[in-house]
Structures are given as C-alpha cells and as structure tokens.
C-alpha cells in the first residue's frame, strides 16, 4: 500500500479494513497507515453513514475492530467492547476513567461510531 486510492469507495474500503491490515503487519504504525489512506485530506468525504454501509458489506471487519480496540495499551482513547449482549463505545479519559459511553444494540452502528472517533483522534490529535 503506497498511494491513496482514488475513488470514494476505495477510500472508504481502505478505512474500514485498516484494523485488519494493521494487525497483519509489524512495521508500520496505525498513524502511518492511516495517513497513507489519504484520511487527513479526504476526511470531509467520510460520514458515519458511509462507514456503516461499508461495514455492512464487509462484516469480517467488525471483529477486527473489536480486537484492535481490545489490544490498545494507550493511556487514553476510544474503545469499543461487548457488554452484556450490547456494544459500548466510550473514551478512557486522562484519569483512567471511562467516559462518554454510548450503548448500541447493533454492532455495525457501534463500530462505525468507534472507527470515526478513533481515526479522527489518530489523525488530528
């Protein structure tokens, strides 16, 4: 993967497949891989709805994002997890407490929310 792919569909596919591709290699940071999708420049074209549609088409990416979140070891940041049959998206704040939790019955919706928040944090914070 070198240059960002041109069409909007390819861009969205590159974004939603990021967690899986990240886990299959050892040498590149998530920041670097995200940058290579063109995310910082093309973020405006991405909405929760476009992510949700892409995830609905490729459900194999859902478990990849759950695993990506579980593997995080950062001091703060967004997470997604399964809790009592529902899916929770939230943020670990600087004091190590969980904040901004939202609960979803639908994994696709939860995952789309998580992806957008997580990638915005990686790209812009």
């Amino acid at each position, binding site marked *: 993967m070198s240059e960002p792919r041109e069409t909007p569909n390819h861009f969205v596919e590159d974004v939603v497949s990021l967690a899986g591709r*990240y*886990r299959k*290699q*050892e*040498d*590149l*940071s*998530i*920041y*670097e891989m995200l940058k290579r999708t063109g995310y910082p420049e093309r973020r405006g074209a991405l909405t929760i709805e476009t992510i949700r549609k892409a995830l609905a088409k490729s459900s194999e990416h859902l478990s990849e994002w759950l*695993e990506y*979140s*579980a*593997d*995080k*070891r*950062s*001091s*703060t*940041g967004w*997470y997604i*997890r399964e809790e009592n049959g529902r899916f929770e998206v*939230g943020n*670990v704040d600087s*004091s*190590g*407490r*969980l904040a901004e939790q939202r609960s979803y019955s639908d994994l696709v919706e939860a995952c789309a929310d998580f992806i957008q928040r997580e990638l915005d*944090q*990686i790209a812009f*914070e």
Partner: protein
Amino acid sequence: MPLENAAKLGNVSALAAVVATLLRFRARACVVLACIAAMLCATTNASASQSVQTKTRVWDFSFAEPLNTWLERDASSRLRLENQSNSAELASASPHAARAAPQVGRTVLGKYPDYVNLAESIGARRFNIPTNIWNKMSPAEQWAANQRFLDRAIARGDEFVLSNPVKSIGEATGWFGRELRYLADHGYRLAEDGARMIR
C-alpha cells in the same frame, strides 16, 4: 591534563602512579589529593545524573521523561502507601527511587479498557503509554515496550490480576493472550480462579 585523563579513564594503576608521585611532594600532596577526590566525585555524580536526566528515546520517539515514568503507572497513591508500610526500605514517591528498590505488587492485564478500569479501582500497576506516542509506534515497537514492562513486573515478582478472567491461557486472544503466554514462558501459571497469573 594527565590527572583528569587518568581519573576519567578510571585507570587505577595510572592514578596510583600519580598519587605516588604526589606523595614525594608532601607539602602539596594534601591539596592535590583533595582535588583528585573532588574530580572523581564530580565525574561519578555527572554520570549518575546523566543516566537519570537523559531523555528516553524509544525507537523514533524522543520523550522528555524517562521511559519508566510512563511505561507503568500506579493507579493511585494507595498502592505506594501499602508498599511503604510493607517494606523495610524507605520508599519515595520518585519513580527513580521506586526503580532503585523494586517492590512486589499487583499488575493488571487484560483487554482495553477493562484492564485500565480494574487497575484504577484496585490501585494496581498497568501498562501505560501516552496515546499520541502509542499511535505512532509500530506493532513491533509496541510489543517491545510491553515486553519490557512485563519483564520489570516479573523481576519484582508481581502477581498479575486479569481484568478478563479465562479458563485457560489459550482462550485469551490478541495482545492479552500474548501477554499471558509470555508470563507462562517465565514461570507463571493461571490460578484456579482464572483471574490471576501466579508463580
């Protein structure tokens, strides 16, 4: 200057020769010997200070703080207080002092954010890297840092508390599973309750 070179090099025989020469000139010997002692002290202190104050550099990232100040975090001062009361040694709030006198404690492992939550609530250690740095590390770099954290906890003889209990080590996936396998390779086993790794 020969004296300075000899002192810096720590060349004992060279220093002995210098001292022997100086002893021939007894009138000045005390003054010069005092200078040598001061120089040696300064060299030692500078070296020690440098090792503490040098910026920690991990792969391509440079940090103002030493690695150990953020590689692990005591979730609250409670653990430190417990450690102080249980230890015959004087413990300090300084991370450098803690490093000098490692204390057995509890370290939490598990899935994010569960392990963070549990470590906060029981006042245990957890692996902790600032988010903007974590995101710019490759998986290989992240595991190297995690491994270093585990090595330090193993060396202290910590008990590992699991935020996500398992029936077997093989059941744990991802980094959590990798951490448990690493501990198993270093003499730890899963406790019967499935919620701890013990020796």
